[in-house]
């Protein structure tokens, strides 16, 4: 198993230079990047909205439950929800979900092209398929996912407000004061670093699984599943490493 993992890691690393070679035709790549940006960005807004709002709502309600009756002032709830959202929940949860939605889709799309000989056809035309099929997806994801993560963070704060203020857990003034207290801009930088790293991981791992798929539909399904599982594991691992490095 370790030997297999090392073999895949080596193959993955050796494959990377193929992806970032000079495009055959810049405008074709640009078109593909824009298409991918639309698919990843607009296509994922619904699920990001749903998850972010509920995460914000649940965080505020549960944090209120823990703080109730203590000497901690209620406005701290806004402060804690904001920092938890920005530092951890928005980038990590959003990217874990996107690994499931976008990552599995990429693995299935490229894997399907491999099985239907589309990739062979492009290779014979002279197209660098590693670059044409993977680079636009990676570039699009690295550009769009940080924006989605920012949207997720804002929606989470709105979700927390909607779940707590109208229900009387605390007042709008208390929540707003909390959200505006002790703000450290560096945390936003940390969120964006995480978003970029996670975006790269989820696209490159998923594309790798699709590009090198062998066999039939069962293997394609398995590759799609592996894309999500490995992306999630690597996202969590890199989350820890980034946390250690950027907070040291």
């Amino acid at each position, binding site marked *: 198993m370790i030997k297999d993992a090392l073999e895949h890691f080596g193959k993955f690393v050796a494959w990377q230079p193929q992806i970032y070679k000079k495009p*055959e*035709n810049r405008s*074709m790549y640009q078109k593909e990047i824009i298409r991918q940006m639309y698919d990843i960005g607009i296509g994922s807004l619904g699920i990001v909205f749903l998850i972010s709002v509920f995460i914000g709502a649940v965080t505020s309600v549960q944090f209120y439950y823990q703080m109730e009756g203590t000497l901690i002032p209620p406005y701290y709830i806004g402060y804690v929800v904001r920092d938890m959202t920005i530092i951890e929940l928005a980038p990590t949860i959003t990217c874990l979900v996107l690994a499931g939605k976008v990552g599995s889709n990429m693995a299935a799309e490229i894997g399907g092209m491999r099985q*239907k*000989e*589309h990739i*062979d*056809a492009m*290779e*014979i*035309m*002279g*197209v*660098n398929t590693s670059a044409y099929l993977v680079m636009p997806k990676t570039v699009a994801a690295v550009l769009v996912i940080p924006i989605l993560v920012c949207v997720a963070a804002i929606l989470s704060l709105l979700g927390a407000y909607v779940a707590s203020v109208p229900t009387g857990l605390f007042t709008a003034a208390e929540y707003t004061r909390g959200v505006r207290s002790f703000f450290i801009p560096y945390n936003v930088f940390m969120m964006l670093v995480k978003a970029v790293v996670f975006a790269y991981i989820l696209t490159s791992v998923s594309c790798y699984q699709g590009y090198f798929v062998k066999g039939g539909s069962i293997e394609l399904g398995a590759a799609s599943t592996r894309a999500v599982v490995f992306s999630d594991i690597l996202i969590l691992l890199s989350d820890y490493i980034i946390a250690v490095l950027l907070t040291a």
Partner: protein
Amino acid sequence: MIRAENIYKSFGDQEVLKGISFTFEAGKNNLIIGRSGAGKTVLLKILVGLFPPTAGKVWYNDQNLCVLKPQELRQLRLKVGMLFQGNALFDSMTIEENIRFPMDMFTKRTPAEKQKQVDYCLERVSLSGINKKFPSEISGGMQKRVGIARAIVLEPKYLFCDEPNSGLDPKTAITIDDLINGITKENKITTIINTHDMNSVMEIGDNICLVDHGKLAWQGNKSEVLSSKNETLHDFIFASPFLQKLVNQINADKI
């Protein structure tokens, strides 16, 4: 001209090709024939550069395909067109987009020039007017012809066809053969066709290479097929019970 020189290919312990040497001539239909599993497709994929051979060389005139750098290989591939057994048409693109794709990627032609070339290629394969359809909206025979149109859009010097007649009725198969033959002769390109269709062998087989158990079992042309005493060729050609009955009937009538 393409020349395979002592080609060996193994997948693990299984040796699929065992030292095949053959010259595929320009301006001719070069047929690779043989039973299923004989190694035809592997040989074709080695010739086109999709598989590296375990040993041996593939020469495109004076260029050895096996030692080309990726950039040189891409340059060479601009001179290659290929029709796949399953057509490999991009199913989320229209017919026109499929045919235009190589031009979009590799040429700086104007939209009008590209449109003219797409229309010419579609006309060449007798499919004018289906530009906006998707591959799933046309028949298998039409998909083959679109595959040919895409393969010739950049005016290649080498055309590869993997089982161009598989899954087609005899009449449509003849149309495809005529089309490939016409393109080969008009443009004097080197065409390599991987087939086990005996009609193709007898109609367009200018230069035939019979592969059996990974080795070159026979070579010749369509006029030499019937007179050959080669047992492997004989077994291959008369494998069909219908043909055997026909031959027996003719022999009986003669007696």
